[in-house]
């Protein structure tokens, strides 16, 4: 045994020893001594002695050998590396103690055992470390000890330190090595002493799958092994302590692959893969995948790391696992590994007593707290918090038992933070109050000192990072006399603040510390925390400084904007700069503010405005009140409300902004023209201000004018006092295409009433726009469409039936309400200010569609038709609108006209004349009468009942009266005549005078007429008369 395993090194060593010390004889003896030492040790461990060569010869003590063994272990490293010179020098000292010889023999002893061990292991990655050698050496000895363990009291085991390390062995090795021996052992030792039954049982056990058995045993072993590990741990921690720097990875020892995975699934994947590995190990037996470890770090999301010597194994291993992308993997460079496995997270804040934290849960959620104490295990901290107490105000008191049922405070209804008030507690809830001393109370099982609550929280319920206490919060933590611990505050705030400072290229800065302290420069480049500053004295190159060592420079007169802190968004003019504190006058509040320079930035003169509301926005102040913003600040707004009143309000009193672009509200101007948002209007009275419509409120229109400076050009008017100048859409088209001839009053007068021309010139929005119409002209007759554009007399219509636009005379259209109903002509549409009739037909004439039928007039001689035809005429008189009449420029049908009256007047009054059928009237004496009388329409009307007058005037002559005009019939129609006595119109008729009075009467009867009477148009019958 001793000779076989001699390695080259040991030979050399021994030769050295021989030559130098001349101790030839000693060598052999010592070698054997060493062997013996081993054997004795074995004897210790194993009951059966091994056949050792020359046991009796040995003078050495076992203890000695153990000692040297350990020495060897310690020196092993050195010995292995420089066996040459170093060993030689050592030998000088050690010869007396036989050190060198022992070393050799130890090495020898290791030789064969190591090989044996190799054979046992299926591994191919044999490490050449000392440690591994140790491992190897342990193999057989361990087995022996295990056996012993099964039968000896574990606690009685005297642990030998160097062996403890050996215990930490690969579990599979343990399994394999131990199991076989253990089974044999069972058979051998128990066999003879037990009965047959036990034998059989054992056989059965053996027949079981050996793998299963092995695993069970291994598990059992591991459990026991684990329990007894306290000594192991201590041993490892004491003797096996290796400074981390000796563990630094090398290319051979550590191959770790970073593998991409779905971000957020890292932990889950680690668990999953570990489980998979264990399962695979079970099922694959000896052929195990060489995956050593799988890990994840929170700092590196989207990646997990796998320690495996071979790349191909990873693919095999991760195959079929979702969320991991093994194709994207890379070998982590060895030098990066220590960083990757460093135990501390970089953004962690170390908790210290006195630092600020925020509570994450409970009623104190979000509250600032000061760490008072940190528990022993670093897992809990005692916090000092400003309590939120209601002193049982909302407790439910049971009347019968007079017991209180404490209501658990909830976050939603938590009381405001206030220092503990013993007096309140005493008064409201005495039962729960205990006084410890003057400053210290216990109330409801919680401690209050100096008014602060001291409560223990777990660290996972605390927010520790990036805490930025507000001054208000800090003030609450002030001591009793109100002074703050400014240094601690600044310590806490400083870093956070520094991180948020924003520098921009071009900012003037002063350097606060370092070599360039005090010098001033201009920011050249910026990054998150390093700023390059160009200094005037070093013009060539910009120097880099950390953000924290820079301060912005401002001068009196600069206009600045606050970019950080409570006053963020405010702006103003700098008054004083002192010690890095800048005092400026706020543009908004006119108050002086003092702000740290780094929270400011230079700005243009305009006040930064709120992003929500801007100038000329229409805002809602209450359900009924709207207003227009005429000056927008950050928090303060000046508004003009719908009464025209200017006031200053805060942002909070604005309910919301009204999107005027989406508002569909319209109104009509004094002329009845439609006004929409965006249209141009002009005041009819007063200053005749002109402007664009911003918004339409029921009774008021907000208008903005560029020519007015007052109130940012906004004013409020009543729509009845304005006239539309141009609509947004057709202002250009409409104006340009006007037929100028229409503007010539002379021509216009001849052709049509002046109003008409007027409206054309003013060119507001044409009422026909956007209306649903039915075409009455040839070609598309009867088709429905929508008026898209009106250009003079022509309307462009988009047909419903097919996608086509046609242009038709706007008068050849019937206008409908969107929902249907009855159509009206253009003229009537104008009369009605652009409103189309609703479905319901009113009793009035106006709504009678039949009434509008000039063509009908012309069509037949029948009385009723005429009658029908006439009403509108009257009606239009009614409205004072001439067009109805004028429009019927029929031709001097003498029929009526025959009625010299009409005819004469009309000359052109072709309208009536158009009734050429007037002959009907005229001609048909009685018939005509009957007509009138029969005209149920008329007849019904009491007025015309008077008509019966006509009829009764029955003097067909009367008819002729109309017809003849000279007849006094009219006169008969006292009705008529009376009324308008003065109406020159009728007067125009030969017998006019009396006849006029006729009219008058009628009207008397008829309110309708009466109205007309009032109308200047009628009286102005001058019109008629004029004709």
């Amino acid at each position, binding site marked *: 045994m001793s000779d076989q395993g001699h390695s080259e090194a040991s030979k050399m060593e021994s030769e050295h020893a021989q030559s130098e010390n001349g101790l030839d004889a000693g060598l052999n003896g010592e070698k054997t001594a060493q062997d013996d030492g081993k054997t004795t040790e074995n004897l210790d461990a194993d009951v059966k002695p091994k056949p050792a060569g020359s046991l009796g010869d040995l003078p050495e003590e076992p203890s000695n050998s153990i000692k040297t063994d350990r020495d060897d272990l310690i020196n092993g490293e050195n010995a292995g590396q420089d066996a040459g010179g170093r060993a030689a020098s050592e030998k000088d000292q050690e010869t007396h103690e036989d050190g060198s010889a022992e070393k050799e023999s130890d090495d020898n002893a290791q030789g064969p055992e190591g090989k044996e061990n190799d054979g046992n292991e299926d591994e191919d990655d044999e490490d050449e470390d000392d440690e591994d050698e140790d491992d190897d050496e342990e193999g057989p000895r361990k087995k022996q000890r295990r056996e012993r363990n099964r039968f000896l009291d574990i606690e009685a085991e005297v642990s030998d330190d160097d062996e403890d390390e050996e215990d930490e062995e690969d579990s599979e090795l343990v399994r394999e090595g131990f199991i076989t021996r253990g089974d044999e052992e069972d058979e051998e030792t128990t066999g003879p002493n037990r009965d047959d039954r036990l034998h059989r049982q054992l056989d059965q056990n053996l027949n079981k799958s050996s793998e299963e058995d092995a695993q069970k045993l291994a598990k059992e072993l591991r459990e026991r092994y684990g329990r007894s590990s306290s000594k192991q*741990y201590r041993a490892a921690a*004491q003797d096996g302590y290796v400074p981390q*720097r000796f*563990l630094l990875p090398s290319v051979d020892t550590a191959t770790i692959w970073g593998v991409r995975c779905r971000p957020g699934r890292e932990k889950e994947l680690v668990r999953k893969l570990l489980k998979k590995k*264990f399962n695979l190990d079970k099922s694959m037996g000896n052929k195990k995948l060489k995956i050593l470890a799988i890990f994840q770090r929170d700092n590196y999301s989207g990646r997990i790391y796998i*320690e495996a010597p071979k790349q191909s194994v990873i693919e095999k291993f991760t195959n079929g696992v979702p969320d991991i992308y093994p194709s994207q993997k890379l070998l982590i460079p060895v030098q990066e590994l*220590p960083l990757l496995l460093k135990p501390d997270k970089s953004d962690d804040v170390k908790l210290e007593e006195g630092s600020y934290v925020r509570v994450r849960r409970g009623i104190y959620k979000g509250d600032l707290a000061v760490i008072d104490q940190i528990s022993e*295990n670093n897992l809990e901290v005692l916090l000092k918090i400003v309590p939120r107490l209601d002193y049982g105000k909302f407790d439910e008191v049971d009347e019968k038992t007079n017991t209180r049922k404490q209501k658990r405070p909830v976050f939603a209804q938590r009381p405001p933070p206030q220092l503990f008030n013993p007096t309140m507690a005493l008064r409201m809830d005495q039962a729960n109050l205990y006084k410890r001393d003057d400053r210290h109370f216990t109330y409801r099982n919680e401690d209050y000192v100096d008014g602060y609550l001291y409560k223990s929280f777990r660290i996972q319920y605390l927010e520790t990072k990036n805490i930025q206490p507000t001054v208000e919060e800090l003030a609450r933590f002030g001591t009793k006399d109100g002074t703050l611990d400014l240094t601690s505050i600044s310590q806490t705030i400083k870093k956070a603040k520094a991180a948020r400072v924003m520098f921009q290229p071009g900012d003037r800065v002063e350097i606060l510390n370092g070599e360039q302290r005090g010098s001033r420069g201009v920011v050249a480049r910026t990054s998150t925390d390093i700023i390059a500053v160009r200094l005037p004295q070093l013009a060539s190159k910009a120097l880099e400084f950390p953000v924290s060592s820079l301060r912005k420079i401002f001068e009196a007169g600069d206009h600045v904007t606050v970019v950080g802190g409570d006053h963020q968004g405010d702006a103003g003019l700098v008054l004083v700069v002192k010690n890095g504190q800048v005092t400026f006058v706020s543009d908004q509040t006119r108050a002086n503010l003092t702000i740290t320079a780094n929270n400011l930035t230079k700005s243009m003169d305009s006040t930064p405005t709120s992003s929500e509301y801007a100038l000329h926005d229409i805002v809602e102040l209450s359900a009924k009140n709207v207003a227009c913003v005429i000056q927008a600040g950050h928090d303060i707004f000046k508004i003009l409300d719908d009464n025209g009143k200017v006031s200053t309000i805060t942002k909070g009193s604005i309910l919301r902004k009204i999107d005027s672009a989406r508002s569909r509200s319209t109104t009509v101007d004094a002329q009845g023209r439609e006004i929409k948002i965006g249209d141009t209007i002009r005041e009819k009275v007063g200053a005749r201000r002109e402007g664009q419509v911003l918004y339409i409120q029921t009774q008021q229109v907000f208008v903005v004018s560029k020519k007015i400076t007052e109130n940012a050009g906004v004013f409020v008017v009543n729509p009845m006092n304005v006239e539309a100048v141009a609509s947004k859409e057709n202002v250009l088209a409409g104006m340009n295409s006007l037929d100028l001839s229409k503007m010539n009053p002379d021509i216009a007068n001849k052709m049509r009433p002046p109003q008409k021309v007027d409206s054309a010139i003013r060119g507001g929005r044409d009422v026909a726009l956007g209306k649903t119409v039915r075409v009455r002209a040839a070609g598309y007759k009867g088709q429905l469409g929508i008026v898209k554009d009106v250009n003079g007399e022509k309307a462009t219509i988009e047909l419903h039936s097919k996608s086509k636009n046609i242009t038709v005379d706007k008068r050849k259209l019937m206008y409908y309400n969107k929902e249907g109903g009855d159509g009206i002509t253009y003229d009537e549409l104008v009369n009605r200010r652009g409103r189309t009739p609703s479905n319901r037909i009113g009793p009035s004439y106006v709504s009678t569609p039949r009434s509008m039928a000039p063509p009908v007039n012309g069509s037949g001689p029948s009385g009723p038709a005429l009658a029908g035809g006439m009403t509108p005429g009257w009606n239009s008189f009614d409205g004072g609108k001439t067009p109805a009449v004028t429009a019927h420029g029929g031709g001097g049908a003498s029929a009526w006209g025959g009625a010299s009256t009409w005819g004469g007047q009309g000359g052109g009054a072709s309208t009536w004349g158009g009734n050429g059928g007037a002959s009907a009237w005229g001609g048909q004496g009685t018939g005509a009468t009957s007509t009138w009388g029969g005209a149920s329409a008329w007849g019904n009307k009491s007025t015309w009942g008077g008509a019966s007058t006509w009829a009764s005037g029955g003097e067909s002559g009367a008819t002729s009266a109309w017809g003849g005009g000279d007849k006094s019939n009219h006169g008969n129609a006292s009705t008529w005549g009376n009324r308008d006595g003065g109406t020159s119109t009728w007067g125009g008729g030969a017998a006019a005078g009396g006849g006029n009075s006729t009219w008058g009467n009628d009207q008397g009867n008829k309110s309708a007429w009466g109205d007309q009477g009032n109308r200047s148009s009628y009286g102005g019958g001058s019109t008629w008369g004029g004709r």
Partner: protein
Amino acid sequence: MSERACMLCGIVQTTAEFTRDGCPNCQGIFEEAGVSTMECTSPSFEGLVGMCKPSRSWVAKWISVDPYIPGMYAIKVDGRLPVEVVELLPHYKPRDGTQVD
């Protein structure tokens, strides 16, 4: 399912497992020191390591879990062991990242 990590060896288990079985690696020490397992484990940890083969793995050596059983370990475990335990272990190195080599 709340998990905790042993402050001594770093193994990650559910709270139930710790209460029922203790720490598979260090229970002996805890018993010797006379402390409860809960005192020596922490709910706050980071960096999950699935340790398949502690004896061979460099990662295991680096985070010093190479003597222990395969399983789930944490790289960083917040918290401090009770004094009783620390007294037993002169070379104890806390796992909360406070000690830097």
